[in-house]
């Protein structure tokens, strides 16, 4: 019985497999990378790298692998360890970056700019934890398997990150949208 399954799986056209996987999962993978590096071009690079790695490992991934989960784990891991996620230089250039980011321009919303700025204050791994929780809706155990930390560590970092975000975004007024004059000229 297992040999039948093997033969069937062996006949999957790799190009079709890759094309369909690429089309179906690109946005999800790109989103995971973007929410860590918060830079669309860098996220696109990382997404590209993740797909290249998947292609190169065709047929070599462990039997129980789920390709989408694998891609998200790889992209998140690459994003966390990406130099631009880590460097203080990136933060110094954050103001310069914002108007050049097409995704951000499309948002054209001061409140979102403000949240993005607050997220940039977190460590990359914590940004991943927050996005996997709020964007992907994952449980702490699943998040732990993606970012390579035990569940309890993830919970601790999650709560600590929320505190940081609360501080950065201000705790008065229920985090309402600030007036443009207070926020400045970004956006």
């Amino acid at each position, binding site marked *: 019985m297992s040999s039948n399954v093997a033969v069937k799986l*062996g006949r999957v056209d*790799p190009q079709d497999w890759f094309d369909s996987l690429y089309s179906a999962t690109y946005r999800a993978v790109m989103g995971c990378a*973007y929410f860590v590096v918060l830079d669309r071009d860098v996220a*696109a690079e990382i997404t590209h790298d993740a797909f290249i790695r998947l292609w190169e490992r065709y047929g070599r991934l462990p039997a129980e692998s789920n390709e989408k989960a694998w891609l998200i784990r790889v992209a998140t891991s690459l994003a966390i*360890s990406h*130099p631009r996620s880590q460097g203080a230089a*990136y933060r110094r250039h954050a103001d310069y970056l914002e108007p050049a980011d097409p995704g951000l321009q499309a948002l054209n919303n001061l409140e979102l700019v403000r949240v993005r700025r607050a997220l940039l204050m977190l460590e990359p791994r914590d940004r991943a934890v927050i996005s996997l929780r*709020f964007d992907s809706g994952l449980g702490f155990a699943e998040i732990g398997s993606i970012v390579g930390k035990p569940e309890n560590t993830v919970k601790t970092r999650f709560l600590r990150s929320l505190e940081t975000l609360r501080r950065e975004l201000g705790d008065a007024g229920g985090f309402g949208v600030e007036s443009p004059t207070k926020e400045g000229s970004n956006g």
Partner: protein
Amino acid sequence: MADHGSLEHQLTDFYHRSRVAMSGPVPRWEPAKSYAAPQGWGRQLMFTGAATIFLLAFVAAASIWRENHSSPAGQNQAVTSPTATLQPSPAPSAFTASCKLPLNWWGATGHMSGGFVSFPGASFAADSSASGLVSPYGGTWISYDTPMRRWVPADRLMVSPDGTTWLYGTLGTGMIYHAVDVRTGTDTTLWGSDKMYRLFGLDNKYAYAMLDGTGGAHLWRLPLDGTDGSQIRVSGTWQFVNGAAVWGTGAASLPAGAPFTLQRLDLQKNTVTTWVQLSGPGNLVGFDGRGAPVVQVGGGGGDIIVAPSPGVQRPVAHAFTFAKGPDGIASLPALGDSYGIWLPGTNGLYVSVNGVASKQSSVQAFPAGPCS
């Protein structure tokens, strides 16, 4: 808490609207464009990043050096990471041969660095010449080209045994593979760049790849000089090249728990031999110094065996957990040479000699070439 709810709403809204802003057509593959050197401050950041990588590598190396010099090889205090899993506890056995084992590891910057553990004594030193190597497609995996005594920007499975060639691939209309001459830097595009080859390894003359066609996937041999490739008349799915043979597990992917079978295709005689057959799952994790396959039985954390001849199995390590890189366990993490079989564990580096694996260093890195 009221403000928690508000914060949660803000974050959820941020992610939702960002996703909407990122919607639209999925871009085509344009590897060259996406890896174009950044301009302006991006370029400055690139140099800053390179300097940071060097500094971090230096600091890491100093840290590891101190650790290795604080206790003798084989008796190091293990596990600096709280997430490290329990490793087997073999009787300490210092590796007394005289050689240097090249290692690579992922630094905090996401780039791979390289260095050597020198035996006897297991002293570690990073090698600055390994830093900053990036393949033309942007890949950052590096390995040590022992015959040429230099680092190259490729997985060690993509370096020829004689060390004269390494391969990289980009995705265009098809999968375009390039052979780079280590001595001259000459880049040769392999035949078949309009086809979706899955290249999986090479010997000194040919690269080997699978290509789907009528009746299923077929094995192809692509000359490293760029001349026309040819199909090898054999069925099956093949995944690794080693010792004048290609090896395969019979299918591109197997369902979880499926029995593991490993076949060997002798490239001279064109004969296929079933080399390993397990009643349960397994993974090929490397080859020993004589070209025999090393297999982990039962999946991650299982026993490791070597199969010197068909149907014959000898122990390598008991209940071993391999170290992981950013993209999971490295392809063929175990590396055999004339001294033994090197195993990168979650808490350090082990070597298996005569069926006994013993820890030799607390360095958490992958073998990047044989000890020489």
